[in-house]
């Protein structure tokens, strides 16, 4: 264990050093390849120009290689693999797509993903907005915000353990040690195996993600609320608007853009939800979602790259509109430069 720590520290130092060395050496090399002689002004200016042409690519090089190998190439390869059989060797046309169309588990996953998409972003944004408005009005609001924001730091797996303990069910006459069943019992109900109740168990899993992500929505929306010019509120007050009207008719419309950003960010996250389902149910009791089905097919029976590629492409297709919108926004900001 000690040797592992030592080697990890060594790698960190070596890695950083190697990176720095690359940039430093490549810069030196550039100066040697394109020298700038003092006596020959013509060569000097030509070589200075050449340096300026090459240097950006030296700076960008490592980043572009990583992006190319780990993100751009796989996107293309996944697309191609979706037309091949389980081992990726022989071409099968649209067979994998046809399989997906009629597979019960795939349909179940699509249905559940839509359910997640309908509930989680809306719930996070709503709770985030409400908590942002409430905490901005009290002196200990920042402490409250920290507490709501804290689950952001907790891993999905950790959060799953935390909530599994809340949903814990004990059979027979044993004492219910899960908080939810204990509350249900207190009010005279019967304890339930919450995560094994088809359909409704989806919502019990969603609660976990809402618990984690509400803090994110709250932080961003709170900043947006503070950015609202005070004059607009004062004008509404003078016109005799009440608190409710001011909130819905003055404040919410002004932060509409931010709400959209929060909504789409959480939407992307929901499309990729994996850890929670894996640790809570592993897709049992009709809780399967696309990311888990994909992972399942990656390794099921030695793995089926064709089918799992199709499932990955479905997730990709769902993200694409948001991606295009983002690129447009970024182009607008940089003015195409």
């Amino acid at each position, binding site marked *: 264990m000690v040797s592992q720590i030592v080697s*990890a520290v060594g790698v960190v130092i070596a890695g950083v050093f190697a990176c720095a060395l690359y940039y430093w050496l490549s810069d030196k090399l550039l100066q040697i390849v394109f020298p700038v002689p003092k006596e020959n002004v013509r060569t000097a200016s030509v070589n200075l120009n050449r340096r300026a042409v090459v240097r950006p690519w030296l700076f960008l090089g490592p980043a572009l290689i990583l992006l190319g190998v780990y993100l751009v190439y796989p996107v293309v390869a996944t697309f191609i693999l979706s037309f091949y059989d389980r081992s990726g060797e022989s071409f099968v046309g649209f067979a994998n797509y046809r399989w997906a169309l009629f597979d019960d588990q795939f349909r179940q996953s699509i249905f559940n993903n839509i359910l997640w998409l309908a509930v989680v972003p809306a719930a996070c944004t709503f709770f985030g907005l409400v908590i942002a408005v409430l905490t901005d009005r009290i002196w200990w609001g920042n402490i409250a915000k920290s507490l709501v924001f804290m689950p*952001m730091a907790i891993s999905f797996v950790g959060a799953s353990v935390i909530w599994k303990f809340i949903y814990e069910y004990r059979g027979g006459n044993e004492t219910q040690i899960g908080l939810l069943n204990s509350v249900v019992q207190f009010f005279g109900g019967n304890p339930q195996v919450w995560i094994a109740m088809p359909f409704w168990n989806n919502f019990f899993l969603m609660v976990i993600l809402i618990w984690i992500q509400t803090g994110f929505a709250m932080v961003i929306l709170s900043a947006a609320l503070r950015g609202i010019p005070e004059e607009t509120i004062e004008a509404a007050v003078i016109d005799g608007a009440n608190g409710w009207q001011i909130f819905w008719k003055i404040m919410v419309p002004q932060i509409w853009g931010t709400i959209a950003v929060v909504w789409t960010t959480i939407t992307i996250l929901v499309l990729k939800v994996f850890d929670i389902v894996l640790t809570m149910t592993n897709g049992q009791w009709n809780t399967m979602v696309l990311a888990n089905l994909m992972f399942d097919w990656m390794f099921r029976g030695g793995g089926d790259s064709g089918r799992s590629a199709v499932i990955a492409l479905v997730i990709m297709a769902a993200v694409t509109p948001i991606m295009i919108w983002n690129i447009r926004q970024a182009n607008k900001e940089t003015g195409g430069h």
Partner: protein
Amino acid sequence: MNAVAGLRRIGLPRLIVHLSVLLICIIWLIPTLGILVTSFRDPAQITSSGWWTAFSSASQTTASRLADPSAARQEGANYVITGSVFEAGQGGTVRAFGTRVAAPAEFQAGQPADLGEGETLIVNEDGSYVYTKNGPFESERGRRVYLTIATPPTFTTQNYNTVLTSQGIGQSFVNSLTVAVPSTIIPILIAAFAAYALSWMEFPGRALIIAMVVGLIVVPLQMSLIPLLRMYNEIGTFFGVPSRSYAGIWLAHSAFGMPLAIYLLRNYIAGLPKEIIESARVDGASDFEIFIRIVLPLSFPALASFSIFQFLWTWNDLLVAMVFLGTNREQLVLTGALNALLGSMGGRWEILTASAFISILVPIIVFFALQRYLVRGLLAGSVKGG
């Protein structure tokens, strides 16, 4: 000077606001509190009562036997037996006692109970008793008494000892650090150079690369997994090295964090004052020198924001670790270990809660120590359209 001040003047009753925020805080805190408290409880107590009762003493009714009549001493006309109802090592507080099974809590502790036939018994809270009779005791065996004993809440760090040593959580903790630290530091440097080039250097295709980076931010990880897994396996077979290694996961994490890193850092670096960089150029500094001496120190807030994101993301990740590092016990990261324990230790909550708490401890410390930078990074990443 904020918009909310306007609402305040109109004012919902302030008390309702305070109470609802308090309620929200409690709801948000209770789940985590539950595992924190449980991880310090005795395994037997975890299964016998809910964690919310951990701080109150648990009452239980037990039976005990007083000392044999042969131990009686004669004091004047009376015969007296003294002793303690507790055996050695046993502890607690006696609340009540009784001599009949039908009424096990008939008498209050510390008060003399008249048992008839000239017998009196006092059991004190600390368990000591005085049993008196106005003549010799006749029975052969000690008298049976029923006790209501309140055991004080007991807390233990034993669960942590267990998981750190015998459940492999200690090893996984080191593994998680081994994965997360290089995966945080390597991409920062690479992304910072790229971000500088994309902000302050003129070259054809710059807009295209920026657009590509923005697009790649949202590409789901799932798209990369299959081809990369195949690639890793091929490289592993070709060079005869293990396909699942720390080097592999460092590169994977670095690459997956790269688009967001470049985007965040570019936003920040492009916003640095132009005059500083121009004047350095006029002074004859090369881009390399400008980057190292000026841009890097000035970008500290953005670098800090991104490194927190990346650290939390790599520490908390399960999917990338499962695919690129596998589920071998020697290389299992904390999230993977926790996932495995959920399967194998289903009802052993003392193990699960202690392990879970160890795994969330580091991110929570990072979170509370560096919350400022985290919020700044979130705002930079999201409000501007990411």
